[in-house]
């Protein structure tokens, strides 16, 4: 169930990041949208992690190196352009992944078939904002380009083969590139040209190697449960 753990961690960690926008997004509708997307991801995480153990123990009591999420999911939210760029990269990936996973008929297929429809809304949301910011003002264009460029080196990791998944992840990479390039093109943005991996990342998040920011994310996410074990409201 290494695959369920990895995908569940992606969803959990990104949900936590998106939750940071609550009360802080540029407009009220985006507060609601980003936290709705976070809630969808949390639902996926609960289902996936429950396949591999106790969801609360897995979320609140594991150490940094025991998480198997990709580094893209854990990076700080940055500005709204950074969040939009990550949502674009991640939701296009997740939609392709879940569509393929739903066809495998394996243990993760029911969740994938259910979630792919929800993720279509996430992708659509990210796409609309990419178009609006990329093809917007000079300033929004500049920041959106900076964001897609800055996150590009974390995208290669999404397509590392995952044991037991039953989906050819490297095979999805060209389709992902095509779809992302299409959106970026329509948004008058340039497709980043640099390497899609950080040179020092080894196997990166899937091997439990995480960025510095991840420790602080876990501190916030796990504090309450560790300070007051079993707390509920």
């Amino acid at each position, binding site marked *: 169930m290494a695959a369920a753990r990895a995908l569940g961690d992606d969803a959990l960690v990104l949900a936590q990041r998106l939750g940071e926008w609550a009360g802080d997004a540029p407009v009220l*509708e985006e507060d*609601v949208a980003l936290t*709705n997307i976070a809630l969808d991801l949390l*639902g996926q995480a*609960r*289902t996936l992690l429950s396949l591999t153990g106790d969801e609360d123990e897995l979320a609140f009591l594991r150490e940094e190196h025991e998480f198997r999420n990709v580094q893209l999911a854990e990076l700080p939210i940055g500005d709204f352009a950074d969040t939009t760029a990550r949502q674009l990269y991640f939701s296009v990936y997740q939609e392709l992944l879940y569509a393929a996973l739903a066809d495998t008929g394996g243990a993760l297929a029911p969740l994938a078939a259910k979630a792919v429809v929800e993720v279509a809304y996430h992708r659509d949301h990210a796409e609309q904002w990419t178009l609006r910011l990329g093809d917007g003002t000079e300033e929004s264009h500049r920041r959106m380009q900076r964001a897609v460029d800055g996150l590009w080196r974390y995208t290669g990791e999404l397509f590392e083969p995952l044991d037991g998944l039953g989906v050819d992840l490297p095979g999805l990479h060209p389709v992902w590139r095509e779809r992302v390039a299409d959106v970026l093109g329509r948004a008058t943005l340039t497709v980043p040209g640099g390497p899609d991996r950080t040179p020092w990342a080894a196997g990166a998040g899937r091997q439990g190697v995480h960025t510095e920011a991840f420790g602080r994310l876990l501190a916030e996410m796990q504090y309450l449960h560790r300070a007051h074990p079993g707390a509920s409201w």
Partner: protein
Amino acid sequence: MTAGAQAPSALEAELIRLVGEVPDPELPVISLAELGVLRGLEVLGPGRVRVELTPTWTACPALDTMAADITEVLTSHGMTEVAVDTVLAPAWSTDAITAEGRRKLAEAGVAPPRPKASGAAGAAGGPVALELAIRCPNCGSTDTRLLSRFSSTACKALRRCASCGEPFDHFKEV
């Protein structure tokens, strides 16, 4: 009543009716039967019953409340051991909402979901269906526009009517 099982017994039919009448916790105008989230009910022995429930959205927070409400109704009708299991497959779709359910949603000011075109929204990697006009539940105008794909709950989008100016929720298609 689980898929492939025999026809429900008289007791099962009665319990299915009772459970079906439980109101949705978020949208109490519509019942669980009208929402189409009940997947099965099986009496396993004297006082023992198992219910299968499917979530509208994967993370729907109303699911726990639904399970609690179902348990309460069944225990007040003599059941002593109630299990409510969540099933994901086949995935719930807005097409499972009954005609009566759609009518009640509209009456309560929530634009009901449109019937899904095959291949829309995700399954085939296709775009989210947004082409058909959505009618304002207040004045009936079809001149409405999307404010946000996400609204007060996961299952709804926020729109505004250009004719009467009212914002309203739209039960979005999945």
